């Protein structure tokens, strides 16, 4: 069966795309992926494609023969028939039979995708403008792992000032990490607008919709790095919020979990200490570059009116408490998100310090992580 399929592919690619296709068929077609479901989907895709090709050969073949043979210039006399009941019944019934032949495997694949089952790992996937938040749900909140995952491709690659890397636009700072051969349930939702969580190699695409939690699942069979993108238009940087999944052997996954949990403990400690302004500014610059630049721009000027300037006006040079509140809770009705849900106290404190002391803003303020922590904890 597989060999027949290969030969088909080879024949078709020779026919249609000559040697371009032979060099890299994968750049032209759906991926087979690394789950049982994704391979089922691929086979279904190829089946429907071949059926369409078959119908196309018959229909276009008849047209081409007709165009070659039934030309006035050949001196033919036009026939006068204009109906044929049997023929018309045939070309109504035959397509119905073909469609039934497609519907049966399609239904069975869809049922497999919707098959309920207990998950080994539950991951909440939350879309934000323009990044993802992953939360590994656990009955014990202390063991819950949560992090943001955003584009890591540098701006100068995007603006053609540096050579583009191999994984241009498909690289993130913190990839989603999953173990292989475990049933992973993705609980997909969004914070602001509609996004879509799509990993082609898992044949998983689910819209992330505010107010809804939809589920999808995958059992990854091979370790590797799998890349996808947000698939639903979600605003300015829709094209810049990739999804990267690292599938690891169970041992490696366990090690990653342990590391993540100790990292969380370390961050907790740094929040407790007193930071110097230089430390805050350095850290704040990093946080700004990762979370704020897309809207407010490198120079803080923003793209008014949707994304206001932070320079010399508004809360960044006004009341510091209001500044912190905007950062923690967002601004309703605008693209300004509630970063209290995304960043830790040290990051909030440092970025507030940073914006109040950059681009000519010289309030001289420093704000300590522990104060922010107190405020966040009191909520």
């Amino acid at each position, binding site marked *: 069966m597989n060999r027949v399929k290969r030969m088909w592919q080879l024949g078709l690619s020779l026919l249609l795309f000559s040697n371009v296709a032979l060099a890299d068929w994968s750049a032209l077609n759906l991926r087979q992926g690394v789950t049982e479901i994704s391979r089922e989907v691929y086979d279904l895709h190829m089946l429907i494609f071949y059926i369409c090709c078959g119908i196309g050969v018959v229909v276009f073949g008849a047209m081409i023969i007709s165009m070659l043979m039934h030309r*006035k210039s050949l001196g033919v006399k*036009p026939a006068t028939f204009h109906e044929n009941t049997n023929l018309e019944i045939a070309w109504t019934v035959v397509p119905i039979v073909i469609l039934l032949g497609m519907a049966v495997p399609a239904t069975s694949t869809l049922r497999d995708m919707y098959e309920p089952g207990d998950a080994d790992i539950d991951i909440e996937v939350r879309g934000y403008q323009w990044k993802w938040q992953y939360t590994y749900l656990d009955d014990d909140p202390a063991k819950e792992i949560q992090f943001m995952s955003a584009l890591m491709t540098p701006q100068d690659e995007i603006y053609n000032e540096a050579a583009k890397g191999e994984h241009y636009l498909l690289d993130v700072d913190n990839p989603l990490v999953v173990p292989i051969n475990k049933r992973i349930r993705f609980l997909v939702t969004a914070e602001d607008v509609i996004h879509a969580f799509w990993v082609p190699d898992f044949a998983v695409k689910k819209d992330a919709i*505010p107010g809804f939690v939809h589920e999808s699942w995958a059992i990854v069979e091979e370790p590797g790095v799998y890349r996808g993108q947000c698939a639903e238009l979600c605003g300015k940087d829709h094209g810049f919020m990739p999804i990267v999944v690292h599938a690891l052997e169970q041992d490696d996954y366990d090690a990653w979990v342990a590391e993540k949990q100790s990292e969380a403990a370390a961050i907790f400690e740094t929040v407790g200490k007193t930071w110097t302004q230089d430390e805050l500014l350095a850290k704040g610059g990093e946080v700004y570059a990762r979370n704020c630049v897309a809207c407010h721009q490198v120079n803080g000027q923003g793209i008014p009116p949707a994304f206001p300037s932070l320079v010399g006006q508004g809360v960044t040079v006004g009341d510091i408490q209001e500044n912190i509140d905007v950062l923690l809770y967002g601004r309703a009705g605008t693209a300004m998100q509630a970063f209290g849900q995304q960043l830790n106290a040290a990051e909030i404190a440092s970025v507030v310090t940073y914006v109040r002391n950059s681009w000519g803003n010289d309030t001289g303020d420093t704000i300590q992580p522990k104060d922010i922590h107190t405020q966040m904890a009191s909520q």
Partner: protein
Amino acid sequence: MSAVIEEHHHDDHHHGPDKGIMRWVLTTNHKDIGTLYLWFSFLMFLTGGVMALGIRAELFQPGLQIVAPEVFNQLTTMHGLIMVFGAVMPAFVGLANWLVPMMIGAPDMALPRMNNYSFWILPFAFGLLLSTFFMDGGAPNYGWTFYAPLSTDYAPPSVTFFIFAVHMMGVSSIMGSINVIVTILNMRAPGMTLMQMPLFVWTWLITAYLLIAVMPVLAGVVTMMLMDIHFATSFFNAAGGGDPVLFQHVFWFFGHPEVYIMILPAFGIVSAIIPTFARKRLFGYDSMVYATASIAFLSFIVWAHHMFTVGIPIAGELYFMYATMLIAVPTGVKVFNWVATMWQGAMTFETPMLFAIAFVILFTIGGFSGLMLAITPVDFQYHDTYFVVAHFHYVLVPGSVFSIMAAVYYWLPKWTGNMYDETLGKTHFWLSFIGVNVTFFPQHFIGLAGMPRRIPDYALQFADWNMVSSCGAFLFGFSQLLFMFIVIKCIRGGKKATDQVWEGAHGLEWTIPSPAPYHTFSTPPTDMKEAHG
């Protein structure tokens, strides 16, 4: 019917058109209004086309070069809105204005003053829509499908102007459709039964009912948006107890019939042209009518196939998959009928025939990708990728747009009294045919390989085919200037056309002189043998 005609007072006072600009502003003549619609739609076609070229220029290479992402989103949104509402729909209304009265032997449209209003609303609607480019925050940037909450809570301030413009387009479309329905049902020449009408008239009758059914739904959904934005309601705001998915259901309940609104009149055009140049009667006229009606009916019950990934329960997914697959049956009947019409004909290949044959082949390719998209589990992989972009451009560009061009070449000699330049026409066809395929065929590949739609920049593995696609787009775009040249040249002069124009043409419009006089069929025709091919 005949009683009405006998009372019709004969008007011997045949006056011609007024002079100057006021002729066009005040006209109630179906031919003038048809001309206005067609020129307006061509202008919008060029406007939307320039935006498309902006998009393709940005996508020529990876990286951001020409437009910033927020501008890119405005271009994709406005390109879609303008092509759908400003180019394709008004072009079909223009053709209906010119042709329906001449095909059914009526002196004019039934409601001429309303006809004037429904056209003159459009320049204001699109003026308003285009003016949003100059507003703070820019033009609509949430896609032509304007999903909430991106189009409500997160929209630029210009969204209110967009909503008002959509309302105006809706009013125009509804008035236009009422006019078409009343004209067809009341003003057919005596003795012309419904089943003697040319297929273009039939497809437009059905299209007009679709328009009346769904334009109010569109008006409803934009009004709900307006309420959410300005009056603190929460139709689509989850935080207020609303439902963003409700938006999509209502939008696509409009949107799916809308896509058939843009293709059914095309079926009518092709069903007129192929028999003419095959010199053979249309095969299966009755089944063509029933297939059109079936497609129209099915269009109301398949809307959620645009929403397979929003989290519909499996029963719903299966229902919408089966219902969508069913559309292939009546559509197949149409394609088979066209092929059977060509079969054993005596064909010649003038420009309208070339466009019509290309329509059948390329629309069928769009139909195949549509069938693939109907298969729910695989649609999860295709959804919101360039595969979808390739699919709907195949049915809209070499589908609807080619049919409009075919219609213009086919009836232009009747309208102007002059033959167009056949060599230039064929050149235009081949440039367009090559351009359209080079543009959109590779988009199947980049979609399958995983490139999402509506992104201004892309990963490196998509680079080659995007470059090919952009080259095709510029070829196709600039070829349309040749089209404009051919049409103007034909209006200004050329070989005189006979009344019959085409050897194999049948239908009442070919019984009147070329160019068609300002007033036709003041006395209704009596011979219905030639009513349709």
